[in-house]
């Protein structure tokens, strides 16, 4: 099996674990579970598109980024506390998708190209929200602490991977580098999942922590 298959299996197990307590826990937990399932399905579909329909998956990447942005924005809107923070989250949650979608309406070709600007616009706010959440809970017990750290870690590193990947494509560098980046991405995802597993363990085995 390919390394990515193991990753899907890990991801699926994680989704199942999070689904166990789906109805018992709060809204943030539910949104987080939906995010995990969504990412798993988009990843799976996009990686198999070529073998199924002979289509390249570039446009799925836009789905992935937009989906991640919208659902994680909502997730952080449930965790963040101050009015200013919530205001920022809500405004961007409305303005950014409208802006991006209107770009595609004006120029539909953009949909089938890698778009660095979009990657930047959709992940940077999430990194900021994640840092805000860390900041809010300095010195106290935090909701979704490890989940948040995992997200922040992956958003940080994957943004660079995506941006670098673009350069690799432009420069038309050998396949070995391409493979290397895919493998780095898989490793990063495993680290992210480790954080998510630990977060799940904390929530599941600690009945007092209702997230």
């Amino acid at each position, binding site marked *: 099996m390919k390394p990515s298959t193991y990753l899907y299996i890990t991801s699926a197990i994680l989704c199942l674990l999070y689904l166990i307590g789906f109805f018992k826990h709060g809204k943030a937990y539910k949104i987080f579970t939906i995010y995990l399932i969504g990412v798993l399905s988009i990843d799976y579909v996009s990686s198999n598109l070529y073998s199924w329909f002979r289509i390249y998956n570039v446009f799925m990447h836009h789905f992935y980024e937009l989906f991640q942005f919208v659902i994680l924005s909502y997730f952080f809107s449930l965790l963040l506390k101050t009015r200013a923070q919530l205001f920022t989250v809500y405004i961007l949650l409305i303005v950014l998708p409208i802006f991006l979608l209107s770009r595609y309406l004006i120029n539909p070709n953009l949909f089938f190209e890698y778009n660095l600007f979009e990657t*930047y616009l959709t992940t940077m706010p999430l990194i900021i929200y994640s840092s805000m959440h860390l900041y809010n809970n*300095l*010195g106290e017990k935090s909701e979704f602490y490890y989940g948040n750290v995992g997200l922040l870690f992956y958003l*940080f590193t994957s943004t*660079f991977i995506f941006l670098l990947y*673009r*350069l690799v494509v*432009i420069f038309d560098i050998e396949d070995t580098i391409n493979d290397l980046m895919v493998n780095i991405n898989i490793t990063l995802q495993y680290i992210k999942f480790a954080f998510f597993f630990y977060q799940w363990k904390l929530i599941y085995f600690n009945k007092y922590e209702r997230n």
Partner: protein
Amino acid sequence: MNAINLENSEIIQGVFFILLAFISMFLVLILFFYFSRKKIVQIEVDKKNLEIDHQKELLNSVLITQEEERKRIAQDLHDDISSKLNVVSLNSHLLKTPNLNETEQLEITNNIIELTQKALENSRRIAHDLLPPVLEKFGLHAGIEELVEEFNSTKTVKVSYENQIDFESYPVEKHLHIFRILQELLNNSLRHGKATEISIQFTNFDNRKTCTYIDNGLGFDSSSEENQKGLGMKNIESRINFLGGDFNFTSKPNEGVKMVFNFN
């Protein structure tokens, strides 16, 4: 030519976004640390303020206790000594009256003798209550033994006392604090807890001196805020603070009281 230009612009774009991402993440980091430091300092200040408030409260309770103690001494002096001496003075004046027969004189003198004896006894008792002489003369161990004996002699409670610490090498000025803590605990157990069995144990482990106090009284919910604010408990706390130790107090309704404190 056009293709090369296009590729160039794409490279520039790629590099630009990587740089932008670096810079923004760097900014996020810097801002995060800047605000975090501010917040951590604020948390520290709040903590210190809380500590100061607590110290103030303790000091206040010490002052209140001091005043109450003064009131009690004043009342004791007034009721048990002044009133008796008053009657003695009256009787002495009576002795001056002319034409007293012998029996009357004898009666008055007996009265005076009896009253002065009582006043003397009372003043001794008051002095003893204030500072047991045995504590000063024979040290803490003997002082506690006497205290325990006093409580045992009431027959309502059985107090057991064990000690592994050599108090003779322990600073004398700290003896009184430990004595007062035990006195307060014993009084509480008897008055509020209606305890019938109490155990006091001093242990010395790794040069850490610990006292464990357990009673089988009514107990109370020690986790509730209200019960922690008693004057007696505050006094005990400030004395333990003074001894440079800390304490752990647990109690549940109908399960008695357990107090463990250590001191240096």
